[in-house]
């Protein structure tokens, strides 16, 4: 029997989210304000992933884009009141910029880039590891528009002592003792022409849940650096020593390929940095049925940290032989790249399809996972079981 509290809570939920509760493959779909129903992992802080069905378009819809927060106090910012402060020990001067200043005084640039949480697919790790149990949808591809971070940093004046640039957003913890979510980048990455302070996503203002009114966009690097609701940028001569750099988002040193964040590295651990080569079949859910002798096509996306994808290979014999999929045109080197492959439906029965991508740097998806305590960088060759009947 329901208690009065449960009854109230149930009614409230139904009223606040009219017809927006749904099920997808046993997952609970819920809609945050301004979003379509997504797979709810946690309510507070809000962590919602994009269902496979919404990952089929080249650019992930803003209202379907995944939501990831560490801290639960997330103010809705008035874009007219919002200010971005830029300064720090290694800056010549302090700036305070309104959104209008940012838009008026710096060149606008757009970059198509995949934003992927370092912990995407954590829930698929074996053995399992604690943390938000994401499956495939803690990622999305978007066209980000804003200004180059380096143009803003140069306006503040970067002196020779600069080592890292430190970023803070408006989201904070509920308790003062909880470390604020503050991240840093090595100065060279901050000065990379592709690193943006973005205020638009797919031609529209950033959705609240994706960092309005402005967020950092670090193409090729995992989502943890893409600080949302950006409010403070500091150019510093020392390695930033906050919890979210020194303790969280770290992997065993030398365990993964990718650029090294030297000022933050120790003999044991190093920050997670670049996105690993990876791919996802989006055309078919696990266990999908295909009609015998009816033409069918497998499709999905492949991506890496920005060298670009040179091949996607498909196997239907448990990896004994591989054949190339057809690659779609590139959307940009930091974006995912489409692939398709015709499925042979002439034989009745089960077929397991493996897909693996190869980057221009020669990196290939592995057939064994590299264990790490926090379950980052899951890029195992994907396997989808289909049934032809």
């Amino acid at each position, binding site marked *: 029997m329901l208690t009065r509290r449960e009854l109230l809570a149930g009614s*409230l939920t139904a*009223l*606040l989210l009219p017809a927006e509760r749904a099920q997808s493959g046993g997952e609970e779909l819920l809609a945050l304000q301004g979003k379509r129903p997504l797979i709810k992992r946690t309510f507070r802080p809000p962590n919602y992933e994009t269902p496979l069905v919404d990952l089929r378009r080249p650019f992930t819809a803003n209202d379907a884009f995944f939501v990831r927060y560490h801290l639960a106090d997330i103010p809705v910012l008035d874009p007219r009141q919002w200010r971005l402060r830029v300064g720090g020990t290694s800056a010549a001067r302090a700036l305070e910029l309104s959104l209008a200043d940012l838009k008026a005084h710096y060149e606008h640039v757009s970059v198509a880039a995949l934003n992927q949480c370092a912990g995407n697919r954590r829930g698929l790790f074996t053995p399992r590891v604690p943390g938000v*149990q994401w499956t495939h949808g803690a990622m999305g591809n978007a066209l980000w528009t804003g200004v180059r971070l380096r143009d803003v940093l140069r306006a503040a004046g970067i002196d020779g002592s600069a080592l890292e640039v430190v970023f803070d957003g408006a989201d904070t913890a509920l*308790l003062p003792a909880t470390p604020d979510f503050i991240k840093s980048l090595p100065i060279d990455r901050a000065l990379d022409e592709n690193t943006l302070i973005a205020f638009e996503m797919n031609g529209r203002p950033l959705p609240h849940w994706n960092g309005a009114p402005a967020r950092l966009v670090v193409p090729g690097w995992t989502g943890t650096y893409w600080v949302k609701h950006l409010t403070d940028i500091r150019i510093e001569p020392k390695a930033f020593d906050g919890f979210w750099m020194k303790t969280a988002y770290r992997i065993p040193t030398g365990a993964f390929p990718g650029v090294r964040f030297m000022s933050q590295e120790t003999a044991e651990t190093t920050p997670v940095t670049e996105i690993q080569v990876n791919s996802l079949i989006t055309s078919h859910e696990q266990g999908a049925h295909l009609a015998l002798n009816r033409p069918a096509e497998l499709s999905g996306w492949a991506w890496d940290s920005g060298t670009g994808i040179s091949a996607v290979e498909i196997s239907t014999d448990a990896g004994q032989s591989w054949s190339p999929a057809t690659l779609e045109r590139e959307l940009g080197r930091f974006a995912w790249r489409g692939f398709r492959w015709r499925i042979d439906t002439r034989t009745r029965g089960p077929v397991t399809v493996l897909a693996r991508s190869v980057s221009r740097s020669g990196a290939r998806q592995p057939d064994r996972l590299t264990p790490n305590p926090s379950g980052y960088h899951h890029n195992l060759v994907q396997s989808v079981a289909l049934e032809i009947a």
Partner: protein
Amino acid sequence: MNRMDRALPAVLILVLASSAPIAALAGEEAITLTDAPGREVTVASCSICHSLDYLPMNAPVMNRATWEKSIHKMVDRFGAPINAENLQVILDYLAQHYSATP
């Protein structure tokens, strides 16, 4: 306004209005943890900072040792106001009811 809204009892409208700014969080009130000794302390302590769905979400990965580590992280790293006595209550409760193996 649809028919459902018009039929809304006054008390619900009040609750609804007061929760409007955090409408996105609506729904976590519906989470109920296993009814057993330690539930009240666990709910009161954990829900200060996060919704309770973190507990069942991680249960298949957890055991007493990993819960102990996790609770200490909440206290030592994140500043959760949990005293030693309550820490033990929460640990016993989670180890028994939200673990793959006790």
